[in-house]
């Protein structure tokens, strides 16, 4: 009985929050890239960042609302000078995590040179995660947003921030 409570105590935080997508496997590509972006903002940093967002800029004010419920935003973006600097196998650690039944593919683009995937994680019909993987010949991008995502809020963002309507519609259809 005691062991049960100890296990429950240890596993409770793991079960309460869905498994996060681990992106560390991609970090080795930074050495090969001509330019790389590595953004890792956990819940605490997101809250800190949101305090510094401008109130006068409507986009930034909207971002603050969206970020309020998030547990993390993680982005890896690598730009290469020549083709073949990364292999499809480099993406396998990410793709294998997205094959979990909780993740659903909403968009899958396959072409000769470019592959793109948009996946959403759902818990009780609520979108609790968004992952975007874009593999281009000279650029590789992986985005993982952890937490309940307000798609309407994201769509309201103007300029360069908003989620395109088409993709939002696909996510909404999948979550219904």
């Amino acid at each position, binding site marked *: 009985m005691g062991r049960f409570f100890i296990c429950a105590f240890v596993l409770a935080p793991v079960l309460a929050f869905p498994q996060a997508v681990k992106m560390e496997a991609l970090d080795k590509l930074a050495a090969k890239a001509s330019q790389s972006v590595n953004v890792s*903002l956990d819940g605490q940093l997101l809250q800190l*960042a949101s*305090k*510094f967002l401008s109130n006068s800029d409507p986009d930034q004010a909207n*971002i603050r609302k969206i970020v309020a419920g998030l547990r993390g935003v993680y982005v890896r973006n690598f730009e290469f000078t020549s083709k073949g600097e990364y292999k499809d196998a480099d993406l396998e650690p990410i793709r294998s995590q997205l094959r979990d039944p909780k993740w659903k593919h909403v968009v899958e683009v396959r072409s000769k040179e470019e592959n793109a995937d*948009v996946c959403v994680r759902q818990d009780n019909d609520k979108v609790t995660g968004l992952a975007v993987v874009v593999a281009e010949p000279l650029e590789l991008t992986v985005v993982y947003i952890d937490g309940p995502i307000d798609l309407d809020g994201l769509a309201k963002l103007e300029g360069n921030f908003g989620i*395109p309507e088409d993709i939002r519609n696909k996510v909404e259809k999948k979550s219904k």
Partner: protein
Amino acid sequence: MIDFEDQLRRALARQEPSAGFADRVVARATKRRPSPWANWRTWAAAGIAACLCLGALDLEMEHQRKIRAQGEAARAQLIQAMQITSTKLHKIQKKVRGSS
């Protein structure tokens, strides 16, 4: 009983002070006490206290500066992350529209 009263009377009988008592009292009353600030120890203690206060203030300001720098960096990262996400999603949207 009479013996007890005699003892009490003797014990409470007026006694003259020793010679020079009044002069000693007046001399002590008029003597100036040295100011606590004349003592170097007081100055040293005040100096240490001031240094500690300034040190604590500087530490707090440094902490605030660090938090501000961290916040500004996190804000820039967040905006960059949103820009990259949006750019890629728009690109995917174009592909999807193009193929349909």
